[in-house]
């Protein structure tokens, strides 16, 4: 087994989860839970691929994906912020809506090829033994964007004034309101930003990491995994990144398990009985469940909770938390 390749492609697939999870962290930090990540990613993947295919310009595709994810998220924002609908149900319907939209508008795209995000090797850094070829060689540009996102979001949330407002809105909206922070506007904004990230994550699949449009199999549950990752990460961008990459690596590892005849010197059961592969395919979903159990018990031990106002509608003048 080629470990360098496993880690390299793990980082690349993990980038999708990372981008989507960071977007969802920003949204949830403002007190809005958006379970529609899967739908927004599908719409983003479709829009990115479709525009790249039709215009021949992958950057336009990327912009379209971001816009599409963001626009779709506004539906959720409107329904939960102004209409005070249940956020779980609204997120679910956003996934249905996104899936339907992507399937209808993406009709006929399957099997087409479109330009993809270019890859690059970082000079010097790629020379570092092991780390270089894994993290800095021949990755598409979105992977490097992912590296930048981790510290930037962390800094933004924890060290800047708008970040402070964001946390205040998610933890204690009534108090933030008295201090002059516009709760509704803040929540709209971060729901929209989360949607933009999800759209970008979708395009990261369809025009960069696994190019192409394969109807709803393009995203295949990764949006849900990203939502789970946010909980696992305790709403912290660093942990989300770590989790995302770990997921990517394990996913690639289980794929590669099917290859060799011998595994650690023993006959490889997955090679000789191809039906066992279905169990390998369960791995990401099982891992998500395990990560959630682990993350929630760790959070319980360390007394880290979700943002206090997560999922609670805010109405001016009513008693807050």
């Amino acid at each position, binding site marked *: 087994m080629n470990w360098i390749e496993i880690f390299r492609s793990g980082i690349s697939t993990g980038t999708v989860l990372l981008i989507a999870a960071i977007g969802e962290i920003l949204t949830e930090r403002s007190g809005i839970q958006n*379970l529609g990540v899967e*739908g927004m990613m599908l719409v983003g993947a479709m829009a990115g691929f479709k525009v790249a295919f039709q215009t021949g310009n992958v950057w336009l595709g990327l912009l379209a994906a971001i816009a599409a994810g963001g626009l779709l998220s506004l*539906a959720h924002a*409107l*329904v939960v912020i*102004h*209409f*005070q*609908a*249940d956020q*779980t*149900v*609204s997120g*679910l*319907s*956003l*996934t*249905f*809506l*996104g*899936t*339907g*939209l*992507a*399937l*209808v*508008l*993406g*009709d*006929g795209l399957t099997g087409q090829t479109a330009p993809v995000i270019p890859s690059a090797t970082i000079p010097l850094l790629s020379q570092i033994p092991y780390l270089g070829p894994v993290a800095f060689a021949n990755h598409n540009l979105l992977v490097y964007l992912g590296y930048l996102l981790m510290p930037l979001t962390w800094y933004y949330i924890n060290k800047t004034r708008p970040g402070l407002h964001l946390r205040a809105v998610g933890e204690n909206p009534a108090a933030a309101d008295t201090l002059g922070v*516009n709760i*509704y*506007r803040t929540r*709209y904004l971060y729901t929209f930003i989360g949607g933009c990230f999800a759209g970008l994550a979708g395009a990261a699949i369809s025009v960069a990491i696994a190019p192409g449009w394969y*109807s709803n199999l393009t995203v295949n*549950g990764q949006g*849900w995994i990203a*939502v*789970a990752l946010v*909980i696992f990460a305790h709403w912290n961008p660093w942990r989300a990144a770590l989790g995302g990459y770990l997921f990517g690596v394990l996913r690639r590892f289980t794929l590669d398990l099917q290859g060799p005849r011998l595994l650690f010197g023993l006959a490889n059961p997955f090679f000789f*009985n191809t*039906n*066992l592969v*279905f*169990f390998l*395919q*369960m791995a990401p*979903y*099982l891992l*998500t*469940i395990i990560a*959630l*159990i682990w993350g*929630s*018990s760790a959070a*319980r031990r360390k007394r880290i909770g979700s943002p206090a106002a997560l999922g609670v509608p805010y*109405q001016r003048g009513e008693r807050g938390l």
Partner: protein
Amino acid sequence: MKIPYPVFLKRHEDPPKWLPAVTSIGAVILAFIISGIVLAATGANPFTVYSYFFKASFGSWGAFSDVIVKATPLLLIGLGCALAFKMRLWNIGAEGQFFIGAFMASAVVMVPLVNLDTTPRWAIISLMMLLGMVGGALYGFIPGFLKAKLNINEVIITLMLNYIAVLWNNYWIFGKWSEAGFQMTKTFPRSAWLPRLADYAAEVPAFAGMTAHFGILFGLIAAVIIYQILYRSKWGYKITLIGDNPKAARYAGINIARNTILVFMVSGALAGLAGMTEVSGVVHRLQERISTSYGFSGVIVAWLAKLNPFAVIVVSVLFGALLVASREIQPSGISFLIQGITLFLVISSDVLLKYEIKWVRPAQETAQ
């Protein structure tokens, strides 16, 4: 810069009785209009599509029988969802519970657990029903337990379990139970088939070719039972109380954890039964595509019916029609789109049930 907020919501003291039904119907109509606009944008003629929709589902008794076939799993799953949602438990795992139910029911024939030649038909079918429900209930136990004991988000767990259940089924139909390398089991013997209308064609000639099966009766009975539970029993009162006000329920000494697990298991059992009716009543074998996202449509059915078991019957027939019609229609995502928009509009319209909406001018707002 200020985002205007020109609506003022006033809590409904006593919403009129007809309002929920009107908002649901309005949501469906509006969903069809919006989907029509999307269809027109993609170059299709919405009127042709919709008239085709109607003909394909209600055009003849044969077509209507097909609608009933599709409505059967939706009804069972929708009832399970309605029960869980009443407690604000988001069981999105009906799809997985459906697959495990189908798997367990198939095991009766494929293992086989009983002698298929000598055991009477009613006994085989009862055993399949029982195992289907047990399978679904056990699969519902997992998220219920995790929610009750560790407070883990049940939406994500149930979704992950959906993927796992499909792969689990694939393992059996691609491998051990595969028939001659095809991705399906052998056809079940007649003694494991739920009776269909067509079986009675000798007595009632009009039934010839009709595929509607006994499963719909299970659904109707289940609707009555769930109604009795929710609106006429102490347990139903507890469920509603936990859903509406968990704090009050806790003070009242209701065991929330136990009820969470129990409701999840009953909800799962209904989805498992739906899986059983599908393999025993429709396809007569276990195969890959036994569900066209029934689990997800069931969520929407329950919500559109405002969690009322009898309304679930009506809505599942409507959605059955949608599924029948969308089988041959292109692009294939259109039924998903209509379902998604419908659910969105329904939850948006809930605001009309809770509040009276009054428009105010900014000047008035400051005056308040």
